[in-house]
């Protein structure tokens, strides 16, 4: 049991830095690091994950250059995410996620603080190949939707706050996801993987549309003979400019390349803790001034159960 569950859990957790997560919480051009594990539990199994994420988006960037900002500005987001995945019949599984988000904008000692439900995500996944005794390869596809179930018209002093301060985007979105992995050893504890996601965003009630985005990642994970495991990922994201009433919004969108290291600890055969960070490597952002990711950290508790 121990030998089988741990690699399975490790495999699930290796997916937890999937860039698809970047699309699921409203943070405008400063998406949260990750909010959806995108696990693919087997037939009859449940996967439950809760994640806390802190995202510091206080870096002022012009194109690819960081520039000093003397405004004393801090822009942070926090998210608490619950995700449930369930293995369905055959090679199908289903995931659902809901987030609560707090955005905070502080400039010169003046602070705007917003808390509310974020977007929900549902995804149906098909996994024609899984790493097993007979295969070293895994392949999964997913199609999903972002549902604007949360708060998208939060106000302060009666004034509706900017879109990037809203917990929810207020818009539907379509999601496509693909994941592939290859085990490097017989146990499946060492593996390399790649994944990609495309998100096509709709327009909310205020005619605002976050830019469509594409993310891609490559990474490697290693589960030691101890409860500890490690993961390192390169994460690329490209986002188009946001739009309002079909007009492109300057200073939104661009390209980001981040390094995402992670460490995980298996509490027992079915539960694990995982900590990860997001370190910007380079970016090339549209137009002249964007506040973007300085760093992000995430802590996830996950539990696999069921038959």
């Amino acid at each position, binding site marked *: 049991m121990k030998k089988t569950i741990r690699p399975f859990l490790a495999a699930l957790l290796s997916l937890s830095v999937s860039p698809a997560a970047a699309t699921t919480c409203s943070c405008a051009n400063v998406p949260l690091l990750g909010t959806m594990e995108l696990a693919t539990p087997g037939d009859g199994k449940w996967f439950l994950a809760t994640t806390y994420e802190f995202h510091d988006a206080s870096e002022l960037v012009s194109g690819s250059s960081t*520039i000093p900002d003397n*405004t004393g500005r801090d822009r942070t987001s926090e998210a608490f995410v619950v995700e449930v995945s369930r293995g369905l019949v055959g090679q199908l599984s289903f995931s659902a996620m809901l987030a609560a988000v707090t955005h905070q*904008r502080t400039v010169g000692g*003046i602070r705007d*603080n917003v808390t509310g439900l974020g977007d929900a995500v549902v995804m149906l996944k098909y996994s024609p190949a899984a790493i097993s005794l007979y295969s070293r390869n895994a392949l999964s596809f997913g199609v999903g939707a972002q549902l604007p179930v949360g708060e998208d018209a939060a106000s302060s002093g009666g*004034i509706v706050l900017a879109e990037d301060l809203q917990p929810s985007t207020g818009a539907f979105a379509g999601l496509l996801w693909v994941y592939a992995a290859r085990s490097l050893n017989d146990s499946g504890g060492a593996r390399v993987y790649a994944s990609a996601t495309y998100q096509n965003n709709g327009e909310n009630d205020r005619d605002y549309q976050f830019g469509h985005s594409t993310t891609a990642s490559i990474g490697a994970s290693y589960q030691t003979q101890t409860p500890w495991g490690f993961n390192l990922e390169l994460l690329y994201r490209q986002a188009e400019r946001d739009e309002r009433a079909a007009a*492109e*919004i300057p200073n939104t969108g661009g390209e980001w390349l981040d390094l995402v290291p992670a460490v995980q600890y298996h509490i027992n055969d079915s539960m694990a803790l995982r900590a990860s960070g997001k370190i910007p490597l380079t970016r090339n952002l549209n*137009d*002249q001034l964007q506040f973007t990711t300085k760093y992000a950290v995430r802590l996830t508790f996950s539990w696999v159960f069921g038959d």
Partner: protein
Amino acid sequence: MKRTRTGLIVTVTLFAAACGGGSSDNPPGDPGANWTIPISEVRDGGPGKDGIPAIDFAEFSPIDSPEFDFLLENDYVVGVFMDGEYRAYPHPILNYHEIVNEEATFTDFVLSYCPLTGTAMAWDADDDVVNSEFGVSGLLYNSNLLLYDRETGSHWSQMLERAVRGSRVGELPKRIQVIETTWETWKAMYPDSKVLSVETGHERDYFAYPYATYRWDEFLLFPISFDDNRMHRKRRVIGVHSGAFSKVYQIDAFPAETTTLHEQISGAPVVVIGNSAANIAAIYSRELADGTVLQFSPVQGQLPIAMTDTEGNEWDIFGMAVSGPRAGTRLEMTNSYTAYWFAWGTFYLNAEIHYN
């Protein structure tokens, strides 16, 4: 930064408070939320209060300084004549700061520029009404800058030219004449003037326009309450308003030589000066304090001298008599300024358009 939540405690708090909502720290002395404009039309621009930093310690350099080599001949500047000195404030710098809290030799004033509506204003900051420095509130009304004064926290609509929230609601600032024209024209008119330095205390790429194609495209970044489609939204006009009446003049529709138009605005005689080649315009009252109503004729090729009158005075673009029996007299300002057409059209409904 003061973080109020950390760790797992945060997660509990987040879910417990997940009904949604926002809060804001009020600035010291903020008197409350008594807006006199529709609050539903006040927008959060995104950067937050002071997220666009005003220039508080403006430095100036000679007009021929190499630091201004980045300016293009057709870049716009806002010109001011104050306490005997001409000063120019280039749009490429103002795009990133929007407000300059200025200390001239004798008079403090605040100069503001809204890149989204293309409007520049200068208000006397030494008088009893204003008496404060200003900052960028981060809020917009009809896409136009809302300033806040640092003395009371009151919000001021730039284009309405009055306080719209706070203890100074309804108060009108004392305006100072500004002239908007191109860098090329300004240099030719005032070669000895000083220019706002790029040494603003903030590191910005002033050469780069921060709003992509906004200056000439048809799109707006924020909703407006009324979209008057009689002209292209970004057409630059000079408008004048009096009571419920307003009238605009397309700057690029003036002849390519200096032109003077004698107009009546709500019964008051004004002169409209325009020159499309120089990309310059201004509107002044024709009636002097002694009741005299002047008749003007344009002067060609001598800007900043723009016109003469039947008494033999010569007047410059700032409305100052520079020679003649009334030398030193200034024409009375009107409620006029340059703006993108969409902005004028939404603030001043049913504006009359002058067609040449």
